[in-house]
């Protein structure tokens, strides 16, 4: 049904397929509203969550999606793994596959690791974040949330604000939004915006107030506090003054704008608590859409072998 067997990233992903995933995701939203939130579609399907990097939110989101589809899930986390005993990545992967599994959801600190995995195991592979490269499921849930709010993605103006150079969320969103016909402007400290990113077809503007004026929606990235010690971001108060989406800043613009954040948030740094909790923010919808869109992705990638006409 989807043209690509795996979901490794959104670069070059077919537009129709992104639309299909989003539409199917809305169907699964309805399932999440039922008293019993379960469908049998992936009964008997075994999915391994292979997380080489710590993550609570993404892993829980995937696990819930898997369980609601009646799939069997197994969790593997790097800290408690055979990797500590020196087992190679390839052996780890092949050992798991030998136990007859259908799909792997992987998060790894190195860009390209999921692609590497496709070379020695046969299962369907879904990238849950590979280093500073891509995080396609996050971008899909972001686009689904925008679609829910605006009814479309084409022509939408989206500002992405923060540390772009270390953000897989940014890169996947850029690919996905441009494919779906949206317009993207990046904003952040110039030393945290890669110089060649313009080649992807995005706008760059270091003035956050101008971006707020222009945009229909803002996707606010977390500024990692680890970066502050490395001389890259001078201080929290500097970042907040220059780029923070604060209550005062938003109020001074007096416009309708949708506020998004992939989480976890640093309240009072890149975003004020009152903004995150305010009416314009759709952050909790993003979380719900995260489960629904991951259900859609798993369903479309793991369900069935052929696409035939329906028969009653």
């Amino acid at each position: 049904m989807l043209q690509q067997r795996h979901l490794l990233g959104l670069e070059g992903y077919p537009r129709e397929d992104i639309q299909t995933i989003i539409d199917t995701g809305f169907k699964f939203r309805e399932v999440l509203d039922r008293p019993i939130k379960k469908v049998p579609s992936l009964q008997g399907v075994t999915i391994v969550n292979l997380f080489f990097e710590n993550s609570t939110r993404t892993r829980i989101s995937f696990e819930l999606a898997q369980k609601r589809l009646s799939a069997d899930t197994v969790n593997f986390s790097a800290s408690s793994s055979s990797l500590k005993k020196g087992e190679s990545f390839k052996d780890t992967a092949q050992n798991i596959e030998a136990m007859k599994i259908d799909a792997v959801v992987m998060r790894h600190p190195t860009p390209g690791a999921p692609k590497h995995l496709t070379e020695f195991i046969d299962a369907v592979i879904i990238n849950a974040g590979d280093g500073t490269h891509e995080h396609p499921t996050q971008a899909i849930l972001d686009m689904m949330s925008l679609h829910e709010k605006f009814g479309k993605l084409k022509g939408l103006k989206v500002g992405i604000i923060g540390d772009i150079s270390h953000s897989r969320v940014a890169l996947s969103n850029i690919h996905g939004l441009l494919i779906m016909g949206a317009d993207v402007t990046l904003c952040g400290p110039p030393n945290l915006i890669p110089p060649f990113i313009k080649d992807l077809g995005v706008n760059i503007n270091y003035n956050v107030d101008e971006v707020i004026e222009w945009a229909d929606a803002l996707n606010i990235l977390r500024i990692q506090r680890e970066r502050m010690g490395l001389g890259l971001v001078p201080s929290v108060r500097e970042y907040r003054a220059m780029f923070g989406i604060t209550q005062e800043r938003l109020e001074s613009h007096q416009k309708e704008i949708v506020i998004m954040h992939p989480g976890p948030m640093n309240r009072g740094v890149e975003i004020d608590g009152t903004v995150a909790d305010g009416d314009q923010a759709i952050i909790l919808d993003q979380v719900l859409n995260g489960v629904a869109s991951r259900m859609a992705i798993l369903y479309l990638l793991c369900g069935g072998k052929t696409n035939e006409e329906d028969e009653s």
Partner: protein
Amino acid sequence: MSNKILMDSDSIGRSITRLSYEILEKNSNSQDIVLIGIHNRGVPLAARIQNKICDISGVSLNQGSLDITFHRDDYRERLVIPQVKGTDISFSLDGKTVILVDDVLYTGRTIRAAMDELNSFGRSAKVQLAVLVDRGHRELPIKADYVGKNIPTHEGEHVNVTLTETDELDSVYLIRSVG
């Protein structure tokens, strides 16, 4: 291929009327009845039955719709993308008499999936089935309580239903693939 018309708009209308009377006759407490149409054509059929029951008894029954895609039993063989309209049941089914409505009853797999899906919405007191056409060839032990018309079919034959809500006209016709 050759087509043979088996029911026209009038005969469909008469069946709907009869089904509506039968439903009221069989269920003493009409307040507990809910009509659930199965996508696609079960939905407009359920609406017609609801209207007719309202004309007859003055009671307006609750109505919902089911998209059984996620509950199909052939999910390992076939991937089906869900319908545009999707499942819509905005009330609890606890203690209710659910009348499932579909256009054609054939293998029975759709109904099994529908009953499986109903479980997610509460524990109904009773589930009954109303279909416009029963064409036989059950693969599961499923039986309709209310049938508009029985149309026995052979291998290679199909029964199609069209309704003005979804197509151009009301009809039930048989498709026979020739040699």
